[in-house]
């Protein structure tokens, strides 16, 4: 087994890079920060990594629309390059703003294998940012590193998280053909469009996507804020019930699985 190297992207307004880095390190990876200016100056650097992580935040203030300005900055020099990186076996994770950037780059859901903005992440129906813990169910998807059938509590924290596909038919296809990796669910475990269990109103309750190859994952809620047991909102009840805290919080599975897959293949 190798220690997979993970490139944790920094950019003006990206603000979850430290927790993303720590979660990867905790999972056994070797993460390092690379600023977008450094990467644009030397795009070849990407080839030295097993995985790319685009953390959450407000890149360039989310001006115009979330992730748009950073995606525009990246597109020319890095868009096709990331596509090739994935084709060669690289893994990509985008969390929250990182997911928005990957969508604007056309890397997700990438059903046709080429850069194309097939979906958007747009304004919550509430018209404002909100931070709340949501319950997700992972689907049987194409994703190589998000196991199916898990019920996970992660915090969502966004103002533009409503995933809308170009057509209702495509929205349905995302679920039916394994692109939708995680769904917002209600108290019965059913995918929901109802607020607040679905915090943004995304049709069919889609919270995360993978691409055709299953090697790119984008999620709106934050595994990088739920990977430690004390991150969980109700950890005191868990501690009371079990007598002790579990090793991980619910978000850790993404980092562990991603590192496991990268290490096994590397």
């Amino acid at each position, binding site marked *: 087994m190798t220690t997979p190297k993970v490139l944790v992207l920094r950019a003006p307004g990206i603000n979850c890079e430290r927790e993303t880095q720590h979660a990867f390190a905790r999972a056994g990876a070797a993460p390092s920060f690379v600023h977008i200016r450094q990467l644009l100056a030397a795009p070849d650097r990407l080839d030295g990594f097993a995985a790319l992580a685009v953390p959450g935040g*407000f890149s360039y203030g989310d001006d115009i629309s979330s992730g748009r300005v950073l995606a525009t900055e990246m597109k020319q020099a890095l868009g096709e390059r990331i596509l090739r990186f994935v084709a060669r076996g690289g893994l990509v994770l985008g969390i929250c703003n990182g997911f928005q950037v990957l969508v604007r780059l056309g890397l997700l859901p990438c059903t046709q294998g080429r850069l194309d903005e097939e979906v958007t992440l747009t304004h919550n129906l509430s018209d404002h940012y909100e931070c709340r813990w949501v319950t997700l169910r992972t689907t049987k998807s194409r994703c190589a590193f998000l196991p199916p059938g898990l019920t996970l509590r992660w915090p969502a924290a966004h103002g533009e998280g409503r995933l809308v596909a170009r057509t209702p038919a495509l929205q349905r296809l995302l679920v039916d053909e394994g692109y939708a990796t995680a769904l917002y669910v209600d108290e019965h475990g059913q995918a929901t469009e109802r607020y607040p269990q679905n915090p943004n109103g995304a049709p069919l309750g889609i919270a995360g996507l993978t691409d055709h190859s299953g090697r790119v994952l984008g999620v709106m809620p934050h595994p990088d*804020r739920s990977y430690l047991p004390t991150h969980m909102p109700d950890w005191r009840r868990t501690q009371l019930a079990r007598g002790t805290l579990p090793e991980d919080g619910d978000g850790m599975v993404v980092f562990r699985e991603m590192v496991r897959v990268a290490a096994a293949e590397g």
Partner: protein
Amino acid sequence: MQAWRVDVVVKPDQQDPMGGSALRALRAAGLDGIDRVRSRRGYLLARELDEAQVRRFAAAVLCDPVVDECSVHAPGATAASPRGAAHSVAVVPRPGVTDPVAHSVQKALGDLGLPAVATGTYKVFDVHGRVDGARLLQAAKKALANDVVQDVLLDALPVGLPGASPAPDLAVHAVPLAGLDPVGLERLSKDGGLALDGAEMAAIQRHFAGLGRAPTRMELETLAQTWSEHCKHKTLTGNVRWQGRTIENLLKSTIAHVTRTLDRDFCVSVFTDNAGVIRFDDEHSVCIKVETHNRPSAIEPFGGAGTGVGGVIRDVLGTGLGARPIASTDVFCFAPPDLPATQVPQGCLPPLSVLKGVVAGVRDYGNPMGIPTVNGSVHFDENFVGNPLVYVGNIGILPTARAHKQVHRGDAIVALGGRTGRDGIHGATFSSLELHTESETLSSGAVQIGDPITERKVMDAVLRCADLDLFSAITDCGAGGFSSAIGEMAEGLGADVDLQHAPLKYQGLAPWEIWISEAQERMVLAVPPAKLAQLLAVCAEEACEATVLGTFTDSGRLVVRHAGTVHADLDLHFLHKGVPVQTRDATWAPKALAEPQLPPERDLGQALLAVLGDYAICSKEWIVRQYDHEVQAGSAGKPLCGVRDDGPADAAVLAPKLGSLRGVVLANGLNPRYSRIDPAAMAECALDEAMRNLVACGGDPDYTAILDNYCWGSTRDPQALGELVRATEAVCALALTYRTPFVSGKDSLHNEFRTPTGVIRIPGCILVTAMSVIADVRATLTSDCKRPGSLLVLVGVTKDELGGSVYYKTKGELGAQVPRVDHGLGRDVLHGVHRAIAARCVLSAHDLSEGGLGAAVAEMALGGRLGARIDIAAVPTASGVQRPEQILFSESQSRILLEVAPDRLADLRANLHQVPFAVVGEVTQAKELVFHRDGKVLATVPLDAVERAWKRPLDLDGTLAPEVAR
């Protein structure tokens, strides 16, 4: 200058949340007849671009390919009115107001390989229905915009971009003072907006008479900034005649005296830096600062609150040799949102607009900064109508070895971050004047709009440079801008500055304007010459503008030039020590108040629901959810708790070093209403409440630092100053008993609003913020009940103290018997409960504050979605406390309600030592609250009624309160 216009609109078959919320806002502003509102986003692009370039840019960047469609209009083209809409209103930033989106548009142009020409933005709302245009414009100015910073156009669109600015006035202006009499001096101060009094103007007159010359305008402005109440705290550091004696330097002999006397070993740096610093672990310290940003928030709530957050973040970033901000707090005081319009004086914004604007301002600055907002509270009183209070706090972490800074002669003066514009000129002096009905128009120059991403770049750059040890001192540009920042850093040395190279947002600024501008997102660093090149290189990598403005010298003088011409040459000793010491009179007499004679409470359940539905107590979830309280992954105790994440938490718990369990507990205490009876009670209860909140969550009362933040109506009136002195003495006496040192503080002393019929003065407020360091966050608690069958244990004594209570407020009364703190009992309760929590005897804990026992038990039960049964006869009371409403709603201090497993009761008793406590009830499975007296049921309140009453008042989206059961 005419420009291309790009209009982006959500496709007809897509949802338009921005249009929806505009519709709600216009309806809430009283406008009838609207069927729907569609929103548009508009962009202006300078005419140097050709049509193909504009279209390419619009399609690639401005228009979302899935949900938007857009149209491009040539420069000079008239705006076609939207199909079917009755009217449209456009909201456009006023010239000179910061427009961060326009900067990003410009950047994206460059990234696409297009010329990065000038750009602008605007928003349009197309209103459908039967609406009168004039009334729509009126409503839109309040509901969709703030006309202090935005123009609102009816059925018109902005025609272009601002043209070139006029050439700046670069002349050195002498301001002759010789021969002016006191009246003339005061008039000069008033007309120039200097906010200096007669004695101060006379001191300046004497100083320059001695030099045989007149001051320059820049020199006078520099003195006005540095000597402002905001920067110098002249009242609190002045002398006060009080009860037959003179207190010299009130702050030093009270607040700072407590800290000196206690001499706690965890204090690393107090009262000397931007923030108070205490030890966290062997390697790191944590620092904390709380500021107010009241005036700017009164005029422009969104910009004022946002830049308040930005300012206090820079305070922490500039502490020691750079601290990493890890959490924010905010505490607000508003007039009640339902205050009738007739009671809102001219010149004041409606309280609900202020509340929404302030919350949005904190949200839209704090969230993009990536700093979690973890703790706060909101308070309501009619007298905040003209002077809302916006307290903003920030906590940082830094290596203890880098907790102190020292400027050296020869260090370069480097400005970092945002560019300088006219924003915020005279902010420091403005905040030292009272507001009046014309403030909204007079002082709009003092308004600032924040740009958090610029500040984020500054933060990233500063922290990298700090890790590389590239600077020897740092401070933020706050009130007074460069003049205060560089002036303070140069104290004891000297500085030689040339403003010619200061980066400007636009041309046309006179040198004195550059010098005192309060443009946001700027820091000043002292950089050793040998490290300058590396520092500039790191800043460039982080996309953070950095400019050398001059050199620190040892001349003892502050020399400011523009292109070589000297505009100011001030003696630093006079600048910092020359301000005359004020001596003021202070008196106090108890108010003639009486306890109301109320009939015995007939319906205790309804009384409880009324108390829970008061603005002071009701759920603040609508606010809390708009703040990111999770970013940085340090959260171990959240603002909302319980099985549905909706119970109120007493304090925030953070584990700021990822992978370490060592933690910080943060809490606050404030109750403005008590000040209406006795400011001493207000002050000591603020400290006791902050400590109760902190201890209830697992904080250690013996490892806690506190902050004092004063907001007062006026201190020129001896009675008001007497109230301040009395409050100060009370909070200091208690802090000595609790052994909690003050490590930082701030004051805002002129919170009055003058109307044609009189003066509205805020109740004097001291916010106490408490921060504790703990070894292991796993030993912390939340307030929600955990298990049916647990015992509910009330620690402390309930007294006849309904004065100033929410219960009385619901009856329209104030009362007289306001809660006071029994110092010894208070200390023992805090330490006893802490011992019990540390010994793991307690399942949950909640402090008793507004609403007393009734509110506390309701909140604990709701959080856990369990019930509770309380025997009011079991409550430990002082003599004379008999009536159920006294026992349930008295706000006596030093009380904490605990949930304890039955088999842990003996351990609890052992840990509480001699502290009075009793088992007052138990947690039940049935979702209802039952209050009984020795078995005789007095009231039964279903939990869903509790939830409705508690959530409804500030359910501003209509999504929190559950449906009424049918």
